[in-house]
C-alpha cells in the first residue's frame, strides 16, 4: 500500500514542467549575461546573477517539489516573475545596490514561501485561532499610527520604521487577512454568521482609509466582497456590498480633494504634463517608445519615469522588453490565477478552498489595478506589481501568500493520491 502511495507521489512530481523550467532558466541567464557584457567593462554582479538566478530557480523548484507534491507550474512562474523584477532592476537602475537589495529580499521571500507552505500544512485549528488572528491583524494595521515609528510617505501613512528597516504592515497583513476571512466565511452560508468577518474587514478598510492607503483599501474591499460571494453565492448581499463600495467611492470623490486629483489626472494627464500628470505622461511615453519589441535590454531610458522601479515598473518593462513581453507577462499572471483557481476548486475543506481563492483573487486584482494605472485604463493607485516591483514588504508577503497557495496545492495532491489509492483497494 505504501508502495503505491509513493508511486503516485512520484507520478505527480513528474508532471511535465521541465520545458517551462528550462525556458525560464534560459531567460534568466541570457538577459543577465546580456546586461553583464553590455558595457566595455563587465558587470560582475550581473554575471553572478546570470549564474545564480537559474541555479536558485532550479534548486528551489526541485527542493520544494521533492518536499511536497506542489503545483510546480505555479512555483516556476512565481520564481520567473520574481527574477524578472531583479533583471529589470539590474537593467534600469544603473546602480548595483537596488537589484542586490531586491535579490536579498527575494531570498527572504523564498524562506517566507517555505514558511507559508509549512504553516498552512500544519495549521489545523483556524476556528479557535480566528479571534486572535483578527486582533493581531488589526493591531498590525494600526501600527503606522504609533508615534515615533509611523512614517508618512508618498501621501499615505502606511509605513513603520523598525531600527533602520521600514516595513509596510498593510502588505504583510494581506495573507493574514485572507486567512481570517476564509476562516470566518467557511461553512457559514447565513449572512448573520458571516457578520464578524465582515465587520473585521470593514474595520481593516477603515484603518487603511485613515492612513490614506487607498490602493490597499480598494484591494481589501474587493477581495472581501468576492470572497463573500464565493463562500455564500448570495448575489443580493454581494451586489449591495459593491453598491455601498461604489457609493463610498462617490463620496470619496466628492469630499477628498486627493481622490479628485487622481481622477482628473487619469482623465487627462496631458493637460498638466509638467505637474500632476507628469508620471502618467512619462509612463505612456515610455510604453509608446518601446513599441512591439521594446528598446532592448539596457537600451531604453525608463529612468525618465518617476518611480520607474516601483509604481511604474510595468511601464519600464514595456519600454525595455516591448509590448509582446508585457502581454506575455500578463498572460503569466493569468496562468497563475487559473492554476490557483484549480487549487481552490480541488481543495478539500471550505477554509482551504476560500483561502486559495482569496489569495489568487487578490493577486489578480492587485495586478490589474497597477497595470491599469500604468496604462491609463484606471486611475493610478499606489499598489505594487506583485513579485516584480521593487520593495521588500510586498515581495516577502506575496511569496508567503504563494507559499500558502502551494501548500494547499500539495495537500490537494496528497488527498487525490489517497482517493485513487482507496479506489484501487476497493477494486482489488
Amino acid at each position, binding site marked *: 500500500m505504501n508502495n503505491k502511495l509513493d508511486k503516485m507521489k512520484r507520478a505527480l512530481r513528474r508532471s511535465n514542467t521541465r520545458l517551462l523550467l528550462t525556458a525560464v532558466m534560459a531567460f534568466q541567464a541570457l538577459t543577465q549575461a546580456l546586461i553583464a557584457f553590455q558595457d566595455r567593462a563587465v558587470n560582475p554582479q550581473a554575471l553572478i546573477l546570470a549564474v545564480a538566478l537559474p541555479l536558485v530557480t532550479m534548486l528551489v523548484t526541485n527542493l520544494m517539489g521533492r518536499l511536497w507534491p506542489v503545483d510546480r507550474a505555479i512555483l516556476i512562474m512565481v520564481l520567473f516573475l520574481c527574477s524578472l523584477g531583479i533583471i529589470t532592476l539590474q537593467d534600469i537602475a544603473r546602480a548595483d545596490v537596488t537589484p542586490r537589495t531586491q535579490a536579498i529580499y527575494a531570498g527572504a521571500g523564498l524562506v517566507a514561501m517555505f514558511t507559508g507552505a509549512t504553516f498552512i500544512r500544519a495549521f489545523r485549528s483556524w476556528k479557535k485561532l480566528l479571534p486572535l488572528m483578527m486582533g493581531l491583524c488589526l493591531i498590525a494595521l494600526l501600527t503606522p499610527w504609533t508615534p515615533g515609528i509611523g512614517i508618512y510617505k508618498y501621501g499615505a501613512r502606511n509605513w513603520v520604521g523598525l531600527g533602520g528597516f521600514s516595513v509596510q504592515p498593510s502588505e504583510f497583513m494581506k495573507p493574514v487577512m485572507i486567512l481570517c476571512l476564509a476562516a470566518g466565511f467557511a461553512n457559514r452560508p447565513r449572512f448573520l454568521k458571516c457578520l464578524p468577518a465582515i465587520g473585521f474587514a470593514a474595520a481593516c478598510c477603515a484603518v487603511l482609509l485613515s492612513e490614506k492607503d487607498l490602493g490597499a483599501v480598494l484591494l481589501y474591499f474587493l477581495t472581501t466582497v468576492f470572497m463573500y460571494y464565493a463562500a455564500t453565492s448570495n448575489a443580493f448581499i454581494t451586489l449591495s456590498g459593491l453598491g455601498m463600495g461604489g457609493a463610498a467611492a462617490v463620496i470619496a470623490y466628492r469630499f477628498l480633494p486627493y481622490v479628485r486629483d487622481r481622477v482628473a489626472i487619469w482623465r487627462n494627464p496631458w493637460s498638466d504634463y509638467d505637474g500632476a500628470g507628469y508620471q502618467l505622461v512619462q509612463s505612456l*511615453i515610455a510604453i*509608446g*517608445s518601446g*513599441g512591439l519589441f521594446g528598446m532592448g535590454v539596457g537600451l531604453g531610458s525608463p529612468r525618465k519615469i518617476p518611480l520607474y522601479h516601483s509604481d511604474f515598473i510595468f511601464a519600464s518593462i514595456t519600454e525595455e522588453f516591448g509590448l509582446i513581453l508585457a502581454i506575455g507577462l500578463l498572460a503569466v*499572471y493569468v496562468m497563475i490565477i487559473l492554476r490557483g483557481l484549480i487549487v481552490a476548486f480541488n481543495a478539500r475543506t471550505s477554509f482551504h478552498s476560500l483561502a486559495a481563492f482569496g489569495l489568487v*483573487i487578490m493577486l489578480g486584482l492587485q495586478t*490589474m489595478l497597477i497595470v491599469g494605472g500604468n*496604462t491609463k485604463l484606471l486611475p493610478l493607485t499606489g499598489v505594487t506589481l506583485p513579485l516584480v516591483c521593487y520593495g521588500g514588504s510586498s515581495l516577502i508577503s506575496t511569496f508567503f501568500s504563494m507559499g500558502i497557495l502551494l501548500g494547499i496545492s500539495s495537500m490537494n495532491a496528497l488527498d487525490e493520491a489517497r482517493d485513487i489509492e482507496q479506489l484501487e483497494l476497493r477494486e482489488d
Partner: protein
Amino acid sequence: MRLIGWLVVALFVGLSAWFAWTAFTQGAIWASDVHNTRLAAANALRGDILDRDGHVLATTDSDGTRRYLESDAARRALSQTVGDTRGMSGTGVESFYSASLLDISGSLLDRMSELFSGVRHVGSSVRLTIDGPLQAYVAGQFPSGYSGAACVTNWRTGEILAMVSLPNYDPYDVMEGREERVPDTAYLNRCLQGLYTPGSIFKIVTLASALSNDPAVVDQPFTCAGVWDYEGGHINCAGNTAHGTVDLETAFKRSCNVTFGKLAYQLGAQRLRETAERLGFNENFKFGDFVVYNSAFPGRISGTSGLVWAGIGQGEVLVTPLHMTLITGAVANGGVMMKPWLVKGVTTALGAPSATGVSTPYRQVLDEAVAGTIAAYMRETVKSGTAKRAAIKGLSVCGKTGSAEVSDDKSVETNAWFTGFIDDPAHPYAISVVIEGGGAGARLPSELAARALKKAVEYVG
C-alpha cells in the same frame, strides 16, 4: 467561486486586449510627444517632410542640421503646420510625427543592422496633404497686420490643403535661440487651436436644426423690424437694418439676426444643441493626424437671452476654423462629414511605404435634403447676399459671412468670418477664414476666400 474566477480572468483578458490595442494604435503618438526626451537624444537623422506634390518642406543636411524652405515668407507660412525641431509649435508635424521622422519604433531588423554597422539611421519621410505653394499664397494674401486663420480642405476626400495661422514664426529663430523675435501666440496653430466665437456663420447650424426638425419652416414668414425685444433683452440686426417680412432664405442670405434669434427661440435649446452636437460641437475629435481643440456649445442655456444669442453664434458658442470647414464641407458633401487628414503617406528611408492616408467618411451629420437646402441658401448668399465678394467667375461658390462680437460693448472691432465651398465635384474645395478684428465678414474674409479658392483650383486641380 467559478463565476468570480472567470470574471477575474475575463477582466484580465480585457485589460490585456485594451492595453495591447491602445499601446499598439496610440503608442506612436505617445512616443512622439514633445515631452519625450528620448527623441532629442535619438541617434538618427530626421526624415523629410514633403507637401502633396513632393516639394520638400523640411529636410536634414548630411551634417545633421535641419533645413526648411528657402523663401522667408513660405517658411513662415508653413511654420505651425511643419513645426520645428524644438517642438515649440506642439501640433506641428515635426513634433506630432517625430516618431516616424526618427523611426524610433522602426523594425527590429533595421535597428540591429544600424547597431552593428554604426551608420546613422535616417528616419522616414512624411508626405502631407498640404499644398505648400497654396498655403504660402494664402498667407501672403492675408490682410497685413491682422491675426487669424484660414483653412482649406477638399470636402470630398477630407484632405487638408492649407492651414494658415497668423501671426507665424521663423523656425530658424527658434532653433538658433532668437525667441525674442517670435511674436506672441505665433506657436499656436489657430486652425486647430483657435477657439473663436462663430457669430453669424453659426446660422448654418441653426438653419440645419430648423430644417431637420421642421421642413415646413422654409415657407414660414418672419418679420424683422431691425430690433426684437424679447423678454429680458433685445437683439438687433447689423446697423439696425429692418429686413421687413422675409422668408428663411432671404433672412439667411442677408444674415438677419432677428429671424435667426426667433428661429432659435422656436427650436428651443434642446433641439439646437442636438444638431450642434451631431455636427461635432462638444465632441472630442480624435482624428489621428493632429490634435484639434473641442468646439463648444453651452450645455446649460440660461433663459431666452442665452438661447437667442446662441442661435446667432454669440455667447458661449466657440468653434475652431478647421471644425467650421468640416461643417461647411459636410454641407457640400450631401451631409457626410469627411474625416480630415494631414498625412498622405510615410515612407522609410529605403523607399518602402509604411503608412498611407486614406479618405474615410467621419459621419453623416446632416440629411442629404437638409444639406442640399443649406447649400442652395449659401449659393444665394454669394450670388445676391452678404457674401457677394466671394464670387468667382465661372465657378459656383456657396458661402456665409459672419461678424462675431468679441466684447460686450462693441469697443473692439468684430472678428470677421467667411466659410464656404466650391459646389463642383471636380473642384471640391471648402474654406473657412477668420480675421481677428477684421470688421464685417462681407469684406476682407470673403475676398480672401475667393482668391484662395481660385488658387486652389489652379494649383491642386
